[in-house]
């Protein structure tokens, strides 16, 4: 039993760190989708944040500045998306995909001179006594600031969406943009702000990878995490708390399969690696089959183009 406990502690800690980039990106996209916009460009925005954050942190020596720069980079990418889809009324799916493509290429181009440069790690929290608790110590009290920030964003986003007037307006815009417009709310502006927020969150998510998870920049280092984050929003039925569970699930399965391999079980590694994706499909199916629940929680105007004049 104690051997299992020894094993469990590090796995929990690893799960939290693996979940963090997913959490940031998915929470950002959740707000965007609640306002009625579907932004498939999360992967591109994450990479923009990863490369810019790394460049700034490496040049200034401050990872805090790096994270801020990453948020700005993601925000700028989001603005590009916003201008195209909300200003020029372009198709949201196509624009999101273009953003991903552009983000992958631009980040690779910009980051060329920065590959292989090591930088200092983001320091981890250390509370004497608490951090050393068995099993939960390192997981709960030994993480770095971004992990805690990510966890804090869950109630923060929830509070914003469901307990503030601004959040109510945002959700109204997502549910029925025609009615919101008739009531005098500036639909395009609200959505644009939501998209900017989503971009900033994705940027931070990307920077977490390049500044903390593996403190280096490598082309395409997000390796599909942006798409996973998009999936997480759906199977969380657009509820922030569920996004956290989903991120833990995905992060947990990913880490667990590595441990299974290390322990030498005779399951082929490739089949184990499939588990996170299969798990995502299963949970997605389980959530989506309740059509009523989906309809209740999915913003009714998700992906629909809004034009004030019809």
């Amino acid at each position, binding site marked *: 039993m104690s051997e299992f406990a020894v*094993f469990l502690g590090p796995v929990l800690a690893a799960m939290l760190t693996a979940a963090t980039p997913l959490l940031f990106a998915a929470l950002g996209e959740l707000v965007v989708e609640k306002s009625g916009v579907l932004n498939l460009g999360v992967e591109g925005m994450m990479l923009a944040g990863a490369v810019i954050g790394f460049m700034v942190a490496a040049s200034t020596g401050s990872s805090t500045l790096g994270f801020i720069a990453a948020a700005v980079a993601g925000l700028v990418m989001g603005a590009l998306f916003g201008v195209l889809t909300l200003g020029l009324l372009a198709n949201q799916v196509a624009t999101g995909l273009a953003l991903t493509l552009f983000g992958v290429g631009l980040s690779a181009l910009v980051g060329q001179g920065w*590959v292989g440069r090591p930088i200092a790690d983001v320091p981890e929290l250390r509370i004497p006594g608490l951090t050393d608790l068995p099993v939960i110590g390192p997981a709960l009290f030994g993480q770095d600031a971004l992990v805690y920030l990510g966890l804090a964003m869950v109630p923060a986003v929830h509070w914003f969406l469901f307990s503030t007037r601004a959040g109510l307006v945002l959700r109204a815009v997502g549910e029925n943009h025609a009615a919101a417009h008739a009531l005098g709310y500036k639909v395009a502006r609200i959505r644009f702000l939501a998209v900017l927020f989503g971009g900033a969150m994705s940027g931070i998510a990307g920077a977490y990878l390049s500044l903390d998870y*593996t403190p280096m920049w490598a082309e395409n280092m997000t390796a599909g995490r942006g798409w996973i984050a998009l999936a997480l929003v759906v199977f969380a039925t657009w509820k922030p708390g569920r996004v956290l569970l989903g991120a833990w699930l995905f992060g947990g399965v990913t880490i667990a399969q*590595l441990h299974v391999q290390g322990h030498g079980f005779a399951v082929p590694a490739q089949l184990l690696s499939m588990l996170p994706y299969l798990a995502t499909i299963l949970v997605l199916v389980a959530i989506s089959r309740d059509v009523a629940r989906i309809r209740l929680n999915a913003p009714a105007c998700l992906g629909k183009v809004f034009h004030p004049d019809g």
Partner: protein
Amino acid sequence: MGKALLGLAGAAVALAVGAGGAVAQDKLKVGFVYVGPISDHGYSYQHDQGRLQLEKELGDKVTTTYVENVPEGADAERVIDQLAAQGHKLIFTTSFGFMNPTLKVAQRYPDVKFEHATGYKRSANLATYSARFYEGRTIVGEIVGKMTKSNVIGYVASFPIPEVVSGINAMTLAMRKVNPKAEVRVVWVNSWYDPPKEAEAAKALLDQGADVIVQHTDSPAPIQAAEERGLWAVGQSSDMTRFGPKAHLTAIVDDWGGYYVDRTKKVLAGGWKSEDTWGGIKDGMLHLAPYNPAIPADVVAMADKTKADIVSGARHPFAGPIKDQSGKEVIPAGKHATDEQILKMDYFVEGVVGKLPK
């Protein structure tokens, strides 16, 4: 008179053209095809270092071109073909997935010389070359066997191909000779270069009690993971000290420059022929990065002796008796594995935890 003048003019023109042509063809064009970015600071980077050495030593006779990030598959053939079509007379393709595309292009350009790294197909104008990485793994095995306190070595591996498997086995065999209690745990990342995944794999192994990480993947992420925890790691393809100054015990450094210079000289002199080169430490095709000062002197001495023994032939990394994981003896005592057996190695030796994906 007019005719003679014309003839003279013609001859003069021909001479000028010929001379001009000769000047233009003076420099041999050598092409390099890399599967990854040279900024990976690992495998492709080292090949490019070899190319730079070639330029430094033979720059007056040679110009080089490189193409990086060439995906293995249908695109590779086009890139190799373009290099050949654009006048490159010696082309190095540096990943095993380029084997069949190189062969196909070689058949189309019989006057161009091709060299394929880590492959096994040759033709009249296609040679193969590789390095005996497993020799380096043997020395690494002794070092990690002595440095580990938990007796668990974590191995971040890419794909279950013989080159990787023989590396794992060579290390394990040497490690168990100096530390029979140590074991090796392997995690497959299914990629040559994926820093976040490599970091995850390394951390999972560290969480399972490993205190040394060895890798056969190309990024320095595992080194960083070990450094963060204050544990040990061994670099791959390239000296990765700056990514983990305390953790980096040593690295197996690929050294292609000497081979590239040698083969280019042969093309220039006209003595190039297709053959298979599988060079080891004694041929200068790989060496070990400087040892971490924290390694005790007696371990360093032991490692140096092993290196000398490998170079002199006194010690073979795969000398029998060797038992595989099931206990079956695959190499009897008194013999050692042949080159062909090493090239086809598809089993793990005793001491490796986990089955080989088949």
